[in-house]
Every structure is written in C-alpha cells, then in structure tokens.
C-alpha cells in the first residue's frame, strides 16, 4: 500500500510536471497561469499522498495551505498591467 501511494505521488509529479510545458509554450499569460494552477492543486494532492504514505500527518497542513492559497496567484494576475483602462475610466496607476 505504501509503495502504491509513493508511486502515485511520483506519477502525479510527472503529470503536473508535464503541465510545465504549457507554462513555457504559453502563449497567453492565462495559459501560463493555468500551469501554475495545475501545479498548485497537483502539489496539494502529492502532499496528501506523501502524508498518508509516510504517516507524517503534518504534511497534510502543507496541502491545506496550498489549497487555501491556490486561487491567490490567479487573483493577483487580474491586477493588470500599467496604462490599461480601468472600468471606471481611470488609468491604472
């Protein structure tokens, strides 16, 4: 069972790692952010698998923090670029 869980974690790392190709290809910033997003949730799942396999339950807390902040980068992306118009017509400082 433990070997299975470690194996699953390794495979998951490989899968989410393949997602990094999308980060490099892009082409839009949104595509790159999606790769980061996949890595955030994939990393959480990997942490859960390792936590269960190793019996160190504290690792679950890492998944907790990763899940809590998973949407954070996507929110920060919407802060925009300088010189773009805001909805109320003012230029973004």
């Amino acid at each position, binding site marked *: 069972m433990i070997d299975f869980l470690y194996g699953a974690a390794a495979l998951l790392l490989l899968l989410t790692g393949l997602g990094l190709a999308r980060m490099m290809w892009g082409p*839009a910033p949104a595509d790159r952010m999606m790769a980061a997003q996949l890595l955030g*949730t994939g990393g959480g*799942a990997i942490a859960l*698998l390792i936590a*269960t396999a190793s019996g160190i339950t504290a690792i679950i807390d890492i998944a907790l923090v990763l899940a809590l902040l998973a949407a954070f980068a996507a929110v920060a992306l919407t802060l925009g670029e300088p010189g773009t118009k805001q909805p109320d017509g003012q230029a973004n400082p």
Partner: protein
Amino acid sequence: MILVDMFTMAAVGAGMFFFLAGTVGLLRFPDTLSRLHALTKADNLGFGFIVLGLLPQSPDVLSGLKLVVVWLLVQLAAATAGQLIAQFVGLERRRDPAA
C-alpha cells in the same frame, strides 16, 4: 482490510486518470478557454477522487477532517480561479483583439 486497500487503489487510480486527462487537455487543446475547461476537471474530479481514496487510510479523525477541508478549499479555489482566468482572457482579448 484488503477491501479498504482495494478501494483506496481504485479511487486514487481514478483520481490519477482525471489528472492525466487534465494534463493532456492542458497540453493538447487548441485554445485557452478549452484548456481552462480541462484544468478544472483535473482540479475537481482528480483531487476529489484522491481525497476519497485516502480517507479510509487516515490515522485519526482530525486528519480525515483536514482531508475533506482541503478538498472543499480546492473546489472553491478551482471554481474561482477558473472564473478569474476566463475573465482575464476576455479582458486581454478586448484590449488586443489580435491575440
């Protein structure tokens, strides 16, 4: 005991399958919004199945509870991030229709 382990293997395996589908979709789908669709599948179903599979293996009630909380948080984050990224794509397209 064996039954529980089999359940875990099946559920984690199903979770891996959805992560695989999500990654393949993220890499192979032709445009940004359909890639986003693939991603949210991995987030929701893949993560959900893995948590479901790990639940019977959790050593105490608190750990199990935390697993469920993690899953709920990922649900919320995936849904919101999906929305926000889609809005961001729309915003970029309006600014620069060529992109």
